């Protein structure tokens, strides 16, 4: 699968040979930093504030466009998980020197894993499990009933809902607890069945 770049993106990336390998290395160091910090929004901070600009010997707009182009190149390639060969063929149209192409390839291969993990976090999310705390109690009496022996498992469920941690306090009885465990173990076992394994294998 080849990556198709628009004329505008090609023009943006065109500044790379001018700023040279040193510029690329610098771009890389704060490019990845930016992915981690602004990954979710994929928004660039104004380049003016960046310390590298002076060293690149180029205008603000040129640097900003160059970095945006580079980020697009790396993000899209990582998103599509394109192969080494396809990546090389995709950047071939830019007409860069072999040395620069090699640098770009290395940049892609070195950062692909991290970029993919950041992109993976951007999936539409339901509240997801974070952790669980539990406590064991025996209720001994209440206003309406004396002399009880009622075991109870109190659970505090922490969920991650769009980066916010929420908690839910729940309670259950011993037999339901065993039932829950049994059900969840069945759920885990399901992934090991031939049906699920076949689907998973054929997808890859």
């Amino acid at each position, binding site marked *: 699968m080849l990556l198709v770049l628009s004329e505008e993106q090609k023009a943006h990336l065109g500044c790379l040979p001018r700023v040279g390998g040193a510029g690329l290395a610098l771009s890389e160091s704060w490019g990845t930093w930016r992915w981690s910090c602004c990954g979710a929004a994929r928004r660039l901070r104004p380049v003016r504030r960046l310390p590298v600009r002076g060293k690149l010997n180029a205008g603000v707009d040129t640097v900003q466009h160059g970095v945006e182009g580079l980020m697009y190149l790396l993000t899209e390639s990582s*998103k*599509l*998980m394109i192969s080494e060969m396809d990546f090389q063929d995709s950047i071939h149209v830019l007409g860069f020197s072999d040395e620069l192409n090699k640098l770009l390839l290395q940049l892609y291969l070195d950062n692909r894993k991290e970029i*993919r993990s950041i*992109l*993976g976090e*951007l*999936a*539409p*999310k*339901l*509240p*997801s*499990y*974070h*952790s*669980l705390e*539990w406590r*064991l109690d025996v209720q001994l009496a*209440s*206003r*309406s*009933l*004396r*002399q*009880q022996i*009622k*075991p*109870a*498992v*109190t*659970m505090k*469920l922490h*969920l991650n809902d769009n980066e916010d941690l929420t908690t*839910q*306090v*729940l*309670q*259950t*009885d*011993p037999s*339901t*607890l*065993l*039932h*829950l*465990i049994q*059900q*969840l*173990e069945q*759920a*885990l076992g*399901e*992934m090991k069945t031939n049906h*699920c394994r076949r*689907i*998973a294998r054929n*997808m*890859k």
Partner: protein
Amino acid sequence: MELSAYAQGGCRLLGDPRRLSRRAYAALLRAAFRGVLQPRGGVADPELSDVDPAVLKQCHAAAAACILEAGRQRADRAALSACLEECKLDRERIEQFCTEYQKHREALEELLGSIGRAPPHVTDVSWHLAYRIQTHELHRAYQPTYLLTLSTENSDAGSQPDLSFSCTMEQLQFQRTTLLYSRKTDLVGKLKDAAKSLERATQL
């Protein structure tokens, strides 16, 4: 077992054959237990149509108070008959009361035990397993994902919305070998810990 003055007065009326015939007494006893255990059912009974409504009201209130107090204190047969004897009920009527009480004792304790505030009670878990293929930001994002729904119910607030959240396979149960010394965070592991502790506690 202590009753209020009004209830004691009512109990004395209960034992008065001139106010309440034997058949009316039996009908009133049934109606009182029904009124406590199934509050939505009416008290109407043809056997009671001849009884003076004011007497009927006080007798019914007294019987209900006596039933609830006995249930609350988990009174045994002896304690209940002692209390009724004080109110001058005859042997036969006391015997009848105690027999009805024994018959409904379990349901009564269950009802009284369920009164009061408690966190939502988990009654069941349902799950489905999906295999994630791709997201808008990431192709080939292969990963099994579970969606769990905890069914809960609440004794006072009536129905409670179910609690749904997603969970990866590792969050459900991670491989112990890779994380030997770190704290457990997986759901099934935690629930199993709770079940184990519960088992130990019941052996004490």
